[in-house]
């Protein structure tokens, strides 16, 4: 038995997972229309490389990675690009983002695939590029491009962790994937291990998924690989990367650092599965497993094409009539959807149909009574009640001093708060406010620099001109006077300069004046 460690706090919300694990993963039928966002991953938006009206094949590249942290986007099926414009996506802002609308032709025709027969004969850089172009990103929720996580530089990676904890209530997509596709996960994990050159491979799976653990163990035994499945205690947020690393290795990722800095890297099990398909079959990431659950008649997991509208998906599971909104992700960290037509993206692990009965609205928030129940459950050892105080009074500096940015927004504190304070909401507000300020500060510094440079330049130009004039005057003294034409030219030049100065000056006055009325 491996020695396990603990992290501080944690909660045990009702898991509500059994509803959606009764039947096997079903294939969702081809939707009538697909909306494929160009920004499905952390980092830069992919650059569209198709035009409206283009016919595309399944797996064809439609968005090229743009920038270091970016990933490719592909057509999930064959069909015609009907539009490239701003569409609603699953984002807490409810704002639209750039998407391609794809009308399937129903043939589901693949492009020519280029599988890699023996990945061991390729360099890690080549494999990274393959994953990048296959659009492989973390499927646990953050959608961080996997190739970046595999670029580790000189760091020696000791442990590769496959995250199958799936600690959020309701979500079962990883559970079902582990039960049904353990062999592919193990193959994918081995590819990742090879790329990282890690010494050991650990699968962290919460002990409420005995079938998944058994399936993984079988697959590992069959593959004769030296991987290890570790059953970890069920506690939320045990599936958060930093907490999982702590449980399995006893190490804490230092604040502001990456897991690789302590020789650990962590991937979701579903990411390993797609990595395997991308390398061994040449298939880009076109679909994923999504749990449809909550207020529906048939809670189930579906293999869904990226871009499928949520409403077509939910219809398969028959949402009950009192459903009043949909949530993407789990009940602890999920995002409320701004509309039912938003598409499934690479980060969509679960869609919950919610009703007032399922998630009853909280009674109004009361003042904090400093009971510290929040501090007791905080997995980051923070003092949420203090952070809340600083955030609500906009004391951002102190919030930062009290480690606001070490908060993982797990929501455990809000879950237990007897005063029903939306604590995480305050942290999100404070964090985004601080980020915006830092950005503004940067812009201001940049502007100051440019302004100072400009002043300096003008100064220099003036001086140089004066010097030149003086030199000329000296040289010209014995020479004959300027011709009348030259004189006229110079006068005109001078007049023009004067005019510009005047205009610029009046601009200053003008703006101040206009602000006056």
């Amino acid at each position, binding site marked *: 038995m491996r020695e396990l460690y603990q992290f501080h706090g944690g909660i045990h919300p009702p898991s509500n997972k059994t509803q959606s694990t009764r039947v096997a993963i079903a294939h969702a039928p081809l939707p009538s229309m697909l909306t494929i966002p160009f920004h499905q991953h952390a980092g830069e938006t992919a650059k569209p490389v198709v035009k409206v009206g283009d016919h595309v094949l399944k797996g064809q590249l439609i968005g090229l990675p743009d920038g270091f942290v970016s990933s490719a986007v592909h057509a999930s099926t064959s069909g015609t690009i009907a539009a490239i414009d701003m569409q609603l996506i699953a984002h807490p*802002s409810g704002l639209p983002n750039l998407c391609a609308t794809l009308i399937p032709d129903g043939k589901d025709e693949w492009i020519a695939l280029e599988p890699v027969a023996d990945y061991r004969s390729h360099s890690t850089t080549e494999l990274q590029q393959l994953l990048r172009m296959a659009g492989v990103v973390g499927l646990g929720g953050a959608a961080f491009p996997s190739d970046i996580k595999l670029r580790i530089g000189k760091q020696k990676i000791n442990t590769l962790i496959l995250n199958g904890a799936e600690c959020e209530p309701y979500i079962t997509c990883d559970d079902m994937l582990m039960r049904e596709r353990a062999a592919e996960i193990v193959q994918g994990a081995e590819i990742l291990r090879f790329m990282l050159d890690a010494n050991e491979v650990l699968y962290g799976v919460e002990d409420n998924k005995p079938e998944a653990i058994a399936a993984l163990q079988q697959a590992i035994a069959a593959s004769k690989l030296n991987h290890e499945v570790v059953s970890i205690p069920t506690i939320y947020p045990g599936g958060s990367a930093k907490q999982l690393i702590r449980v399995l290795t006893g190490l804490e990722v230092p604040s502001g650092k990456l897991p690789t800095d302590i020789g650990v890297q962590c991937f979701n099990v579903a990411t390993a599965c797609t990595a395997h398909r991308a390398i061994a079959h040449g298939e880009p990431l076109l679909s994923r497993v999504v749990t449809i659950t909550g207020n529906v008649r048939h809670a189930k997991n579906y293999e869904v094409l990226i871009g499928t509208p949520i409403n077509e998906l939910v219809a398969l599971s028959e949402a009950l009539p009192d459903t009043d909104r949909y949530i993407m992700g789990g009940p602890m960290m999920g995002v409320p959807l701004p509309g039912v037509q938003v598409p499934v993206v690479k980060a969509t692990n679960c869609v919950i149909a919610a009703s007032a009965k399922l998630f009853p609205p909280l009674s109004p928030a009361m003042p904090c009574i400093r009971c510290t129940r929040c501090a007791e459950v905080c997995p980051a050892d923070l003092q949420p009640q203090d952070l809340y105080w600083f955030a609500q009074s906009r004391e951002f500096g102190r919030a930062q001093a009290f480690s606001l940015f070490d908060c993982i927004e797990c929501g455990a504190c809000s879950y237990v708060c007897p005063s029903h304070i939306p604590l995480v909401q305050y942290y999100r507000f404070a964090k985004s406010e601080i980020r915006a300020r830092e950005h503004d500060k940067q812009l201001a510094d940049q502007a100051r620099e440019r*302004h100072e440079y400009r002043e300096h330049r003008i100064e220099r130009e003036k001086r140089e001109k004066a010097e030149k004039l003086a030199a000329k005057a000296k040289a010209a003294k014995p020479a004959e006077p300027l011709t009348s034409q030259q004189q006229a030219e110079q006068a005109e030049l001078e007049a023009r300069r004067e005019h510009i100065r005047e*205009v610029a000056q009046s601009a200053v006055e003008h703006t101040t004046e206009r602000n006056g009325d």
Partner: protein
Amino acid sequence: MLNALLVMAGIAIVLGAVLGYAAIKFHVEGNPLVDKIDAVLPQTQCGQCGFPGCKPYATAIASGEANINKCPPGGEEGIQKLASLLGVDPIPFGGDTQPKPKSVAIIDENTCIGCTLCIQACPVDAIVGAAKQMHTVVASECTGCELCVAPCPVDCIIMKPIEEKISNWKWKYPVYALTESAATAGAAR
């Protein structure tokens, strides 16, 4: 009685000496005040404060010649920051200076005659273009100062407020029935 007085006086002298020594010994050579104020100002260089730029305004504040509520681009936030930096009470914007949404200048490229007047007005060199050629504003460098708008002889520069996109979207202050008043109380503190 006399002893007590002497003891007290002695203590006072010793403590005074310690304090004086500490003041010299631990004296921090801070940035001059002007730089500190300048660091808080938004560097829009718009001159709306009545000074030809942020640094001159900072200098005026430092010498007590200008109030701290003259900078619209800085917003209420800026006033708050200046107030806490200078240890004075924040004052609201006066009737004539009001903050507005942050904007960028946009040149209508069809109308532009390439006169270069705007280039000379831009305090941060954010406009590119040569004489008789179309000009463009480098949006990422534009501070939204509006100084280029007036000089344009063909009125082809407009100020466009920066719209909210996913990339610059911010979480809003949580507003919930009961906590709202608590929040305002907190903000006022």
